[in-house]
């Protein structure tokens, strides 16, 4: 026989190859690899939970600084669960589990199908559970008894004659092995389903340059076509806000620092959105009436969806996720605070930006949000009875931003109707410089007609030089007369001071007045007295103006005016509000006159073709686990050998690896069964 050198090397190579692939298989299917991979997955998952995922990049940059930001970005830590390395490990895990299952499958199969009737006497004697009888019975009877005992205990049996001996092999609980297969196959199945639903296809499209993430906030019509994804291309999870009475045929997929536009194979029209509240103002349920227009359908689908009750159509599931304003239309009166009393009518919708020309200044008004209800615990109920479950509704309010020419923003929150604060009613106007701060509220007292007109007139009157002059003269006169000083020169001097203080009050509030006074009286011997006197003058001047206006309003002369407690309260509140207006920082106050409420529903739409696979896998997993834990695979053998003296030797032995204690009991019950038939009883019956 002649062998060429080439064929020898080929053989050697194939052997080496085989060995190499065997090593690979060995490695892939090894428990150590699986456990190591599991540990890595666990650690990656920890990172993913500790580091908030998919936040805007700028947040990370602020948090970590430029260097670590870049390091983390390269490691894909901002989106761990769709990072290439994470998916790679998951893939490896599937492979490893798959190899493990397929390698063990033949052995498992043998375990389940073979009764191992070739067992030897020595091996049975070596089992911790075994028993031997010298029965006064023939082999047939002994075999029938042994088999009966086994079958009576639910064992399946096979028999085999080996030489003299008859061997009965019994086993029970085979499905435990099935449990092993099911659980491991389930892990692979779930992982495959997960990969189908993951964004791997999207990543590939991105790598190939078929899609590009859009980072700018553009109107839909201006989003470039490479950021659009055609309908029914893969799995996705996106969201869209649709105002009542509008429709949408797309959803937005938030990705890293941008988004993609996913087209839907149908249009969703939102007829109505409804929300219900608990007494404390928390939403108790919300739902949307949807109409789905699908070109493939003759009739549109009409369905109401709510939280926990989604709608599924053509593999797309539409969920009620959130809600918001859908562009409520508002009619607003802007009341200028420059003393002119000018009123500007403003009409706009939420999310609109409006340019306001306000005399000498310009402002951009951004209408941000609208709230129909403002429910808080009723503070009076809490103080009165300690009850925390009484609530009051302060009615509608809206949020807006005013930007000056330089783009500097102040944020406002204004209530439509007066709000009761400690038994008094006010128009509340909140302001903050930074969106993280709480609002500080300007409290404008309501007049006897429940409007803020009287206050606005009062505020306007303070800008009227002549009126202030006259009032300050009267105030100075009254005060000095009370003190017993009659000096006209001093009166006009004091009045001038009062004028000046009112200007400070209008421009900077009481704080500015205080500072101004402080600088004036500084160093004077009788500083505290001077300060107190000046304050009294200011207050008296304001009061004089107020009295005059109040008399005017009531159509009486100031002398015959009856001042009530409520009038005094109003005056106090008005003084504080004048000071508050100075710090309010807006050239105008907005008063909401009328609105047409329009809500938007926040929908989440998903398409997950792998869902069925994952659910199947989960079912397999659960069945498998219960089989694995609560069924125990056990084997019992009986070896029946006739003896020369006419007796029969019966040797029984059994094994159960998982639950030895429980098996001990079962084996005892088995031997009792055999005892009953092969013991003394059977002997008598034989006679």
């Amino acid at each position, binding site marked *: 026989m002649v062998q060429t050198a080439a064929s020898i090397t080929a053989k050697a190579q194939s052997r080496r190859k085989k060995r190499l692939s065997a090593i690979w298989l060995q490695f892939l299917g090894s*428990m150590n690899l*699986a*456990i190591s991979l*599991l*540990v890595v*997955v*666990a650690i990656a*998952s*920890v990172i*993913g*939970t*500790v580091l908030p*995922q998919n936040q805007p990049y700028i947040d990370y940059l602020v948090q970590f600084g430029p260097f670590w930001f870049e390091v983390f970005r390269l490691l894909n830590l901002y989106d*761990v*669960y769709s990072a290439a390395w994470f998916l790679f490990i998951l893939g490896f895990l599937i492979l490893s589990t798959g190899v493990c299952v397929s390698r063990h499958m033949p052995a498992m199969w043998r375990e389940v199908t073979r009764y191992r009737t070739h067992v030897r006497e020595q091996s049975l004697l070596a089992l911790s559970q075994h028993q031997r009888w010298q029965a006064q019975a023939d082999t*047939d*009877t002994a075999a*029938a*008894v042994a*088999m*009966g*005992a086994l*079958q*009576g205990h*639910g064992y399946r049996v096979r028999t085999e004659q080996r030489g003299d001996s008859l061997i009965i092999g019994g086993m029970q609980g085979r499905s435990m092995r099935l449990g092993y297969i099911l659980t491991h196959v389930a892990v692979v199945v779930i992982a495959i389903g*997960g990969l189908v639903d993951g964004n791997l296809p999207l990543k590939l499209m991105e790598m190939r340059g078929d899609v590009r993430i859009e980072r700018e906030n553009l109107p839909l019509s201006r989003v470039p076509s490479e950021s659009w994804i055609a309908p029914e291309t893969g799995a996705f*999870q996106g969201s869209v806000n649709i105002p009542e009475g509008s429709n949408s045929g797309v959803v937005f997929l938030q990705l890293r620092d941008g988004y993609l536009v996913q087209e839907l194979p149908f249009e969703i029209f939102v007829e109505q959105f409804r929300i219900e509240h*608990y*007494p*404390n103002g928390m*939403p*108790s*349920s*919300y739902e949307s009436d949807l109409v789905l227009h699908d070109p493939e359908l003759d009739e549109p689908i009409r369905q109401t969806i*709510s*939280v*926990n*009750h*989604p709608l599924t159509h053509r593999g797309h*599931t539409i*969920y009620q*996720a959130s809600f918001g304003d859908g562009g409520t239309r508002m009619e607003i009166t802007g009341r200028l605070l420059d003393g002119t009393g000018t009123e500007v009518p403003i009409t706009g919708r939420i999310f609109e930006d409006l340019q306001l020309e306000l005399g000498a200044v310009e402002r951009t008004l951004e209408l941000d949000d609208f709230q129909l209800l403002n429910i808080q615990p009723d503070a009076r109920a809490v103080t009165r009875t300690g009850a925390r479950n009484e609530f009051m509704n302060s009615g509608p309010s809206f949020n807006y931003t005013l930007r000056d020419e330089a783009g500097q923003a102040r944020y406002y929150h204004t209530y439509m109707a007066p709000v009761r604060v400690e038994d008094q009613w006010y128009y509340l106007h909140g302001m903050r410089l930074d969106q993280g701060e709480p609002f500080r509220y300007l409290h404008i007292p309501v007049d006897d007609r429940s409007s803020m007109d009287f206050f606005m007139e009062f505020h306007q009157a303070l800008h009227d030089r002549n009126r202030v002059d006259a009032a300050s003269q009267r105030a100075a006169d009254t005060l000095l007369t009370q003190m017993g000083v009659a000096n006209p020169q001093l009166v006009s001097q004091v009045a001038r001071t009062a004028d000046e203080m009112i200007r400070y009050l209008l421009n900077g509030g009481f704080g500015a007045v205080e500072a101004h006074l402080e600088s004036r009286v500084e160093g004077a011997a009788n500083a505290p007295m001077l300060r107190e006197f000046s304050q009294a003058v200011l207050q008296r001047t304001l009061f004089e103006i107020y009295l005059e206006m109040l008399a005017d309003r009531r159509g009486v002369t100031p002398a015959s005016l009856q001042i009530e407690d409520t009038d005094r309260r109003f005056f106090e509140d008005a003084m504080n509000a004048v000071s508050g207006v100075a710090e309010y920082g807006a050239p105008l106050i907005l008063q909401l006159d009328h609105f047409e409420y329009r809500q938007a529903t926040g929908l*989440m*739409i*998903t398409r*997950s073709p792998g*869902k069925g696979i*994952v*659910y199947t896998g*989960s079912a397999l*997993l*659960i069945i498998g*686990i*219960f089989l694995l*834990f609560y069924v125990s695979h056990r084997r019992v053998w009986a070896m029946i050998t006739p003896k020369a003296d006419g007796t029969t030797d019966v040797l029984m032995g059994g094994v159960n690896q998982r639950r030895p204690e429980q098996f001990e009991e079962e084996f005892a*019950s088995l031997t009792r*069964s055999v005892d009953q*038939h092969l013991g003394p009883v059977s002997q008598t*019956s*034989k006679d």
Partner: protein
Amino acid sequence: MAVSRDQIIRDMRQPSYLQRLSWKDWLWAAIMVVATVLTLTVLWDAMNYYEVGITIMTGITMMWMGWYWTASKIYMSAVCLVSLFAISRYPELAAAEADFFLRYLGSSQSAIMWMSALFPAATVAYGAGLLTGNAFASKVGTAMTWTGAGAGLVGLLVRWHETHLYEGGIGYIPVSNLYEVFVLFAVMTSLIYLYYEGVHRTRTMGFWVLLIISASVGFLLWYHFDRGAYQIEPLVPALNSYWMKIHVPTNFVGYGCFAIAAMLGVAYLIRARVADDSPWAARLPTLKQIDDVSYRAIALGFAFFTVATVLGALWAAEAWGAYWSWDPKESWALIVWLNYAAWLHLRFTKGLRGKVMAWWAIVGLFVTTFAFLGVNMFLSGLHSYGEL
């Protein structure tokens, strides 16, 4: 002699599970059927089909539990009777203060307070049994654990009724926030422990398990008094689902089992240092017992935790739009699952036992605790209901 093979096989046939049941078991089954039918009749209008299904499954589960674990029949009956009695005296919320029985025993707050007293007391009793070797002390511990578990469950059931008494139709199963699930945890853990105590006929494990239950009671009390967490607050819409009725309790079977396994891990490490001839040896569970109960607890916990996670995924698919969103709670559930999967693998395939596994079970409790508590405390996400 003619022996009929069939005759022998017939003679030797062991009675089947149903045949082995006593008349008491069948009486129990009858009671469960009647109770289920009654519940369905009374509450039919208030329930959707899923809830009807859940009620029937609950009846079947209780029936089977009564068969499988005789002692639980008394427990379930007592809890049901006391709860029903309490509910019957509850026309309105104010009754909790006015009615003597409710005020001192049956209102959810009193019942939970009784539980909070009984579990620490049981710990002390078991502890006394451990220190002195006095069997009676341990017996008292068992009795108090049973009573505490009963009081806790009565508290939850009555609280369920109380939620419905609030205006605005709040009504929900009280497993919706951290306060309520802590009560559930204490009850579940103690019941699972009591089962193993019965199976192994030893009270030596009691002290160790009751330690962790008492710790959770301590947290509950702090949460109650410092944060006023006992207040019934309305439910966010996402939680308003029949899924909550099955997802949360299933999860807590898992948590309870893992907690028991960890505490037995501690007991194992201590027992392993005690010489067999020392008087302490008899007062501590044997290593074999610990090993067996630890394994069974982790297996049971793992099985239920798997079911709970799958149920959670199904619910998430319905409420949040995705069965898995890598939300922190989900990721940590996966970590817990992987941890115990690894534990079980090493035991099955490598036959690992002893100290390593004991340590691992203890570490496992920290992982579980983080998944249960830490995620709510330190990480934000979709599961923000249980915020501290």
